[in-house]
Every structure is written in C-alpha cells, then in structure tokens.
C-alpha cells in the first residue's frame, strides 16, 4: 500500500505578511514558514492509514523553492518514509496549473494506491492544485474530506466522509484516487526527537527543473514566469480595520457605556 501526500510550504498563519514592491508577491523576509496546515492533516491521515494497515509506505511529494525542504523534513519527522522534491527557486511563484502539471508528471514515476493532499493551500487560498492533478492523471477525486472511513486495498476501494453545507456525505471511490483533506478529528502528531533524527537520514529525491521537458507537458518557459492559466496581477493587504473601542469595568458599567456610545456616537439606537 503506497500513499503519496502532496505538500507545500506556506507562511505561518500568524505571520505578518508584507507585499513586495512589485505589488504581486509577498515579501519573504521575517516570515516563519510551516507545512501548509491542511497538508499536515493529510500527512496525519496517511500515517494513520499506514498504522492501521500495518505496512506500506508514505511518500511526500513537493514542488517549490529550496526553502520548502524544511517543510518536507518536518513531514518526514512526523513519520513519512521518504520524499520527492521538485526543487528550484524559479518555482517560487508558479501558478496552480503549472504546479499541478509538474506534480502529475512526477506521480507517474511514484507507485501509488492513494494520493492525499490538503483541501487548500493557505498562501494563495487555492484548492485547485490537487484537482488539476487528479484531472491530469484521470483519477477519481473527493474533496474536503474530514475522515477516511475505510480503505480496502484488496478490493481497491476507499470510503470517506466529507462535510458540505451542514451535511455529511459518505463517498466511495475506486483506488487509486485523490482525496483532499480537511481537519476532521485529526490532530497532526508532534515530531518525536527520534523522529527528527531519523528524518535526517530519510531520502529526499530531488528532481531538477532542468530535467523536466516542458514541451511534453504542454508548457512553455513563459508559463513559469507569467503563469499558464492564472496570474496574480495585484496584491494588497486588506484595509486596516478601524480601531475598536473596548469598554472597561464591570458589566453594568460596560453595558451603560456601550448603550451611551451606540446612542450618542454611532447614533444607531
């Protein structure tokens, strides 16, 4: 049983993001980088499946600039067995379509029964990559999965629970399939100190950008820079919120002050 998990490195959710002077990209200075949190849920789910089955392999697959290696090491420290890394600093700003082409291309070289990924990447708030991958590979896919109910490798079947619009859908898919993961009840495991030390010795197979034949993927050099299907043309921070007013004191005082402000300042009551 072979599971591949797609991983990406993103800024920490707490990071204070600044926009570069080009107005299209974020300034990486001073940012703490983490594994995309939803990819972490996918790794956790993959490791749980492996533990339940009692054998198999969890392979991480990443495509990104050199710094992404840290996220890969963190995933390996959690317990993944090895990784494949399409690595080049030119991959910093490629669009989801190009990313998915590279990932799908590499997936043809990695044996897999199941592909997991996060339901979205939080840096560009996008859910497109895994779906493009599944489409390219003509695999069935299920999105926004909270829980893997059952994996039946013998009969090549997976049953999952996806939450949508207040209801649960139990979906069955044929393997190999691609599943995008939400958190569900999973809490991504902490790396153990032995896990981190072992991760240092685990294989990260690097794939260089130069070794990829862009033409055969229907891509041009320009697509790498400008985006094949989508491009971010402008990026700005949301407008600063107006300062909030906090009323101090005990509840009766606070309520009186709030009512007064609503009446006299906001003039809404």
């Amino acid at each position, binding site marked *: 049983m072979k599971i591949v998990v797609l991983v990406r490195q993103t800024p*920490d959710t707490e990071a204070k993001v600044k926009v570069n002077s080009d107005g299209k990209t974020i300034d990486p200075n001073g940012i703490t980088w983490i594994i995309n949190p939803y990819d972490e849920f996918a790794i956790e789910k993959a490791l749980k499946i492996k533990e339940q089955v009692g054998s198999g392999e969890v392979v991480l697959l990443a495509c990104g600039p050199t710094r992404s290696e840290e996220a890969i090491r963190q995933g390996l420290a959690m317990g993944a067995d090895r990784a494949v890394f399409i690595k080049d600093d030119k991959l910093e700003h490629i669009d989801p379509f190009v990313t998915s082409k590279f990932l799908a291309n590499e997936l043809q070289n990695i044996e897999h029964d199941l592909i997991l990924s996060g339901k979205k990447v939080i840096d560009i708030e996008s859910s497109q990559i895994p779906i493009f991958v599944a489409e390219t590979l003509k695999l069935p896919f299920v999105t926004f999965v909270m829980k893997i109910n059952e994996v039946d490798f013998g009969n090549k079947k997976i049953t999952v629970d996806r939450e949508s619009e207040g209801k649960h859908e139990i979906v069955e898919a044929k393997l190999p399939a691609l599943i995008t993961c939400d958190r569900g009840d999973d*809490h991504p495991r902490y790396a153990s*100190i*032995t896990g*981190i030390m072992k991760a240092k010795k685990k294989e990260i197979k690097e794939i260089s950008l130069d070794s990829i034949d862009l033409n055969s993927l229907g891509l041009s050099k320009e697509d790498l820079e400008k985006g094949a299907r989508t491009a971010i043309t402008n990026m700005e921070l949301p407008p600063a919120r107006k300062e909030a007013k906090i009323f101090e004191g005990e509840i009766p005082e606070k309520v009186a002050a709030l009512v007064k402000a609503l009446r006299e300042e906001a003039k809404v009551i």
Partner: protein
Amino acid sequence: MCSFELITDQDIVKSYCTDSSNYPGYADALVRPESTSEVVEILKEANSKKISITPIGNRSSLTGSAAADGGWILDTSQMTKIIEINHKEKFALAEPGMMLSDFKKKILDEGLFYAPDPTSEKECFFGGSIATNASGSRTFKYGSTKKYVRALEVVLASGEILNLRRPEIEKNTFGYLPFQSMVDLFVGSEGTLGVITKTEVELLDKPENFFGGMAFFKTLNEALDFVIAVRKELLKSGPLITPRACELFDNYALDIIRPDSPFKIPQNALAGIFFEQEYSLDFEKILERWLEFLEKNNAIVDDTIVAEKPKQQDELRRLRHKVPSTLFEEGGLYVNNGGGKISTDWSVPIFRIHEIIDYAKKISDEAKIQEPVIYGHIGNGHPHYNFIAKNAEEKKQILQVVHSTCKKVTTMGGTIAAEHGIGKIKKDFVKYQYPKQLIEAMRAVKISLDPNNILAPNNIF
C-alpha cells in the same frame, strides 16, 4: 472636595474585593487614577484621613495581596500607556495597567524581547508583575522580573513621588547593601511601600529561534535526576543542553493535561519535563546532543516530542498553564465548604530537591491526606505544590502538613515563597524563614515610608 472620582456603589466595589486566592476582602470605595498626578492626589487625600489604600493590578494574586482589607482600592487599569520603547538603549518605559502579555507582544512586534514570563501573563498586569517580582518558566535562564527593572516612578503614601534608578556603578560601599539599589526595595513589595506608576525595564534582542519539547519518565525520581543532570551540564563549558525552561509535571499533573494533549502521553509515564531551548546555529547538532542526553538520563525517548512550530510551542505553553488553572477551578468548588486549593511556593537549592519532595510526600502519606500535585519550575528547585481540600477539616490537616514542609524547607536553605509573595495568607509561614529581628527591621522600613500604614495593610506583616 476631591477631584478624582470615588466609586462607592458596593455593587461595583464588591467585585474588586478579592483576587485569585479567593481571600475575602472588603472596601469602602474604588478609585481609578489615569495618571501619576491623580495617584498623588488620591494618596494625599487618603493619607490625611488615614484611609487604607490597596493598589491592584489584575488581581491574579494567589496570596490575597490584592484583596483589600478595608479603605479604598486603587485600580491601576486606566494607566495603560507604553511611554517609550527605546531600540538603541534597549529599554521600555510603561505605566502599570497593561496586560503583561499585551506589553510583551508590543515589544516583540518591535523586534525586541521582554524576558519575564509568569504563567499568568495573560491574566496579570505589567505593574502587578513588578510589584510581585513575578517569575515564570523562562526564569530558569533569564532570572526573575527584578533583574530587568532599571528604574521606577513610585508614589509614596504621603503623595511624594520618588524616581529611583538602579545604579550603574560597579562599586559602592555606602549604606546597607539591600538599600544600595532602592529599586529592589520596591520590586516585589506587594503594594506595601508605594504605588508603582512607571517602570523602565531592560529589553533583550529577540531570540533567533527556539524549540519546545516534552520528555517523559517512568518515575518522578528519574525526572528529578534528569533536572540535576541538566544543571550539571550547564556548568560545563560550551554546553549544548541550555534550556531556558525546565518544568515538571508529576503523574497528577500529567493526568490533568492528558485529555487535552495534542500528543501522546505514554501510559507508563509518571512524570514529564517540559523544556524550551533557544538556538542560533546547528539545530541538528543540538538535537543530537539532546537525544544522547535524554537516553543517558532514562527518558522515554521514543515519546519525547519536539515542538518546532509556533503553534505547537503555544500549545505546549497552554498545556503548562492548564495545570494551575484547572487546580484553581477545582479548588474554587470547595471554597463554600471551607476547603479550596492550598498552594505553597517553596523552593530549595536544586541539589536537595529529591530530599524535600521525599519528605513532603512522606508526611502527607503519614497524615493520610491525598497526595499533592507537584509541577512547575523544577529547574529552579521550585515546584508548585498544590492540595485540594474538600472541606474545612481536610484543610486543617493539609495545613499542618504544609507547615511541616515549609519548616523543613527553611532548614535546607530554601524559601517559603519563591514566587507570589506572602500577601495575607502566607503570613503564618514567615516566622520559619527569617529571624524575628529582621522581620521587625522590614516592618520598620515599611513604617518609615508609610507612617500611617495606609498602603496595602496586612500584606506581608
């Protein structure tokens, strides 16, 4: 006619009368100065009428020190300004009323670091932390609050303002040593000597990186041995094991965090050590050394977790905080029965930690009371030692045990109050630690600065 507002509505005043110790305070009025000059006016007025004034921060005190014994409560919550953050000289000057965690965050956002980190930093004020000389898990590396206080503006009971600065000279033989740095007289003075209206604290460079972790042990003794080994390691030259925090969880404390823990706490673990370490280079080399060290010192290494990510690091600290807050809540359930949480804060020189814990356990066993929960700042020889008394009878028995333990602590060169101060509920223990004459001398200092004994009466003495 006074120019400040005196709030006498008991519905309001009452809700300011106790602190986290549940000590039953009372007061006639509440005042809420917004500036030093208002504090001056309030104190002048109160002093002339011999009205008691208890300054309060956010009332997270665990000793009743913020629960007024009559008179007026002086609430510092309206004095929230950070007056200066100086990058060049690395200091911040601030009023007392800001939540300590907010103060620290502002400093961090400016790329600097304020080291003191009481577990209650989200529940206590900057000023309260100065007035109690607060310390926290990182005190293991950084020392307690007093080390960072460079200067103070204090309003005395008379209304006079004192501006005190820690001397920067290296030699001084003028006067009794404890008086040579007047700043130290006021840090940790629990509201008894003056109202702290401004504090200048030293800032450090923000540590480049740190990781957190939690190691588990099959016995409490092994965890204590580990801590001693860490302390020995620190004495070596160029050690790689240099934690900034080293905190104990005994089996009861582990049980408190188990249901909420985001990582596996092994079933056979009877103790845990939470640690944090800063580093600038070679994380892997440091971890390699940690692994070797943990193995040598009998940790359950395969379950020792490392928190590299900020979210995980926060989670670890949250778990650490869960222990006192759970005990505090549980104790609260029995207050009406005459019971409640009984906590002590003794510390001993680190090399005597096994001895005192064995002793404390032995006498609680002999008294047939439930075992205490032991957790906290073990790296400094300072475990928190908490009992929950379900009723007045249990409380009486527990207090006997606590008294014997505190007595023993002082014979070992320890202190009965490594943190939290004495307040109103630890006064019975004072006699064990210092000779009577020295306590009288301290009282004389208090009376010379506050002749009418209006400031925080019944704290310490």
